[in-house]
């Protein structure tokens, strides 16, 4: 595909309402049979992904909610893990959720053939704990911050996200750079083109203002990201500092459970492979003087980095879930930028891009060889 093209849609009431109208219209025309979209729970203090079949329920849909309780990729994978089924489903999610979905598709954990992935410009996500302390206040603060493009109250990893408008799915809804009461619908695939064609939306409008604004924001955030990673590296570099960083880890494995790309049926670190006879522990204690329990805490963290950093999308779910506030997502975003960089890979950028682990290139990794010379 060349530079993506788009259309300007005018919003009759709120942008949110118009986006939902757009999905409803698509269901009316039979373009989708169902839609996966976030919804505010009746109590108002939480959001959940729902698969909507009954259009009347769209009134409670809430695209781009202020928090991320469940990473959207997990929702998509739940629906299609065992095959694509007959229904055409659209999923409206944040770009990092779409990218995680694409990683899962490469890992055989979801079938996207009948799925349409729709991303939206993302202003960031509030830390779960901040939101839960006062949901109503959180809602207001989030709306205000999103309007002013102010990310100070967002999660730290969102503040350094340079891919908050990245198009990886089939369609993208752009709000940045749009004139008042309008938004952009942008196509990123043939599937996207076909859908807009069926809806009678032609992709002829000028969306340069969106491209310009996105470029501007990404560049700025990338600068911040590099700076943050540099600082973090000097803070946690080396095994001793890394151990310090994870000092408070309670080995709950929450980070693993909420991670969209940590898809194993049973985590290696929960398996018998890391359980040893008591004489081994005694031996380890003997050689070092003592051994800390629970053991394998840092081993688990490093193992997860090894396993997942090539697919990590820096969505921040792990850090939100950490009960002792370890900056897991920031650490992972730094590690994964480096590991993915080794292979010129960007997780979830494209379904066609093979996972670095399964793509053999004779020429790659020579820089690592040289480092050892």
């Amino acid at each position: 595909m060349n530079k993506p093209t788009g259309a300007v849609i005018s919003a009759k009431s709120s942008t949110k309402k118009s986006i939902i109208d757009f999905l409803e219209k698509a269901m009316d025309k039979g373009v989708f049979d169902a839609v996966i979209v976030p919804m505010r729970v009746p109590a108002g203090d939480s959001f959940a992904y729902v698969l909507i079949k009954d259009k009347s329920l769209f009134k409670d849909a809430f695209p781009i909610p202020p928090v991320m309780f469940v990473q959207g990729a997990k929702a998509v994978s739940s629906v299609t893990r065992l095959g694509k089924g007959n229904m055409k489903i659209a999923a409206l999610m944040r770009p990092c959720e779409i990218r995680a979905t694409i990683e899962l598709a490469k890992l055989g954990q979801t079938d996207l053939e009948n799925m349409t992935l729709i991303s939206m410009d993302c202003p960031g996500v509030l830390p779960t704990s901040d939101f839960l302390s006062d949901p109503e206040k959180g809602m207001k603060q989030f709306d205000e911050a999103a309007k002013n493009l102010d990310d100070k109250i967002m999660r730290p990893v969102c503040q350094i996200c340079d891919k908050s408008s990245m198009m990886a799915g089939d369609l993208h809804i752009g709000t940045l750079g749009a004139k008042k009461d309008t938004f952009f619908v942008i196509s990123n695939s043939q599937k996207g083109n076909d859908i807009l064609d069926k809806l009678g939306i032609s992709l002829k409008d000028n969306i340069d203002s969106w491209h310009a604004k996105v470029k501007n924001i990404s560049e700025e955030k990338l600068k911040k990201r590099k700076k943050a990673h540099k600082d973090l590296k000097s803070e946690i570099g080396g095994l001793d500092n890394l151990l310090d960083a994870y000092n408070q880890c309670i080995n709950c494995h929450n980070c693993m459970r909420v991670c969209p790309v940590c898809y194993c049926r049973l985590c290696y670190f929960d398996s018998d492979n890391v359980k040893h006879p008591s004489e081994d522990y005694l031996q380890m204690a003997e050689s070092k003087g003592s051994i800390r329990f629970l053991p394998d805490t840092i081993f688990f963290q490093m193992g997860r980095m090894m396993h997942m950093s090539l697919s990590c999308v820096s969505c921040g779910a792990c850090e939100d879930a950490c009960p002792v506030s370890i900056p897991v997502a920031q650490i992972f975003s730094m590690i994964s930028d480096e590991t993915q960089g080794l292979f010129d890979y960007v997780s979830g950028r494209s379904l066609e891009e093979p996972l670095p682990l399964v793509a053999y290139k004779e020429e790659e990794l020579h820089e690592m060889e040289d480092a050892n010379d």
Partner: protein
Amino acid sequence: MERKIGVYVCECGPNIAEKVDIDKVVGAVSSLDGVVVVEKYKLLCSADGKKFLEEEIKKHGITHLVIAACSPKQHEKTFMEVCENAGINPYLYQLANIREQCAWITEDKDEATKKAIRLIKAAIGRVKYHSSLEKKEIECNPAVLIIGGGVAGINASLELASPDRKIYLVEKTSSLGGMITNFEKTYPSMQPSSHILKQKILDMDKNENIQVFIDSNVEEIIGFFGNFEIKVKKKEVDEPAEFEVGAVMLATGSNFFDLKKTPQYGYEKFDNIFTALEFEKMNLSGEISLKNGKTPRSVAIIHCVGRDEKGYCSEICCMYSLKFIRYLKDKIPDAQVSNFYSDLCIPGKSYQKFYEQTKGKNVDFIRSTNVEVTKKENKLSIKYIDENGNKNSLLVDMVILAPAIEPTSDVSELAEIAGISQGDGGFFAEEHEKLNPVSTSTDGVYIVGCAQGPKNISDTIVQSGAAAGKILASLIPGKKMEIEVKTSHISESFCIGCKVCISVCSYGAITFDEAKKISVVNEVICRGCGNCVAACPSGAATSKHFTFKQIHQELLEAVK
């Protein structure tokens, strides 16, 4: 089960004893958990040594054995046999290499002793987690499929065919013989090439254990060493022939470089420019002549055509070009023959002599670059830069081009069908250039002759004999075949079905169970390389005898 570990340290004569303090080693590992006996011995691989070990195992009721001696490459099997004779499973033993990796390479005796202790401790740590593995055998079919009816395929067929081994030879053209049938004579003997082939083809016809398919292509090869199912399709016949074989040999030959890619030689633009093959055919037909029917008085042979484009030397062009000089001199004794070459490749015990005898009056060898052929009146003009960097030219009546040898056009398709890969220059890739030049990454699939790379008739025959020998030695009629025991295994409860293992398996040993959505290893095909184990993100794939636990314990002791 209670583990009773026996540790035996071999002095290997002076080889280990001189550099390692054996008594200190014995002392250091004696009190380790689970170790019931530690002994030293002069030479464990000797007949007495093996008998001693056997008796010791029985006497102490040893369940797990550690031998500290030489490289597993040398004596791993020796001590596995000892285990079997003594009644313990041969995989419940570990060999610590304290000779090649310790005694021989460590200057300081103290250091060497310390290292030996570490290596033995690592072996003890590992052996505790060894499990018994059972030898496995499968029934196999001794028949062989040979693809390609040239000299390689014919020779291998005759070597292999016997009343208990059927040979299926598949040739895509309408007759047997291949490339050689175009040649009048072969170098360096200058004997008629029919001497090589005629009798062999007659023998093929008579041999009822050989079934020849002409005008046919192999459509499908599925299965594994010992049990391949084959489909062969004959042109203009709807139903393919189906049969089973135990091994496959690819003897599909080669092609010549496409001269359209080197327009500077004027091929197909001017008359009287021939390829080597066209010249062979012209010579075989009896008369060497120009288009106007006249006899050429001067001929240029241009070597190394396409060598730069292909990036390799085709090995045989120099020699057949010398043969062409002989053809020319036989038929036109006073012809002037000029060879334009960049390097002469005339190796071996008999070729130099052939070259010396071919050189002589009216035969020139011009080392040159930037060779170009144009037309000048009735003649062809060869422009070139000589060895001293000077521009030069020469007028001749006829030009013969010696193009590079390249893989046949169907090489990729065949590689896919046979489940093997392509290597340098696009030829079929051998398992190891030096150690296993006729084997491939797929067990039971062999490559011979020019399909593996450019080569002459002698080397082609050598290779077809080598591959036949490999088949004769491993695929024995009536005998079951022993298969790899140390295969990988994918845990059903761990596997999440991401198929990463399938994409990294070099042997096509992993299939996907669509019902359960998990990967499954075919242990008959698996060679235990460990690719899937390394790639599996879920820790579902493990390598028997190289489990995480075994390696972890071994490392723990080694680096402690």
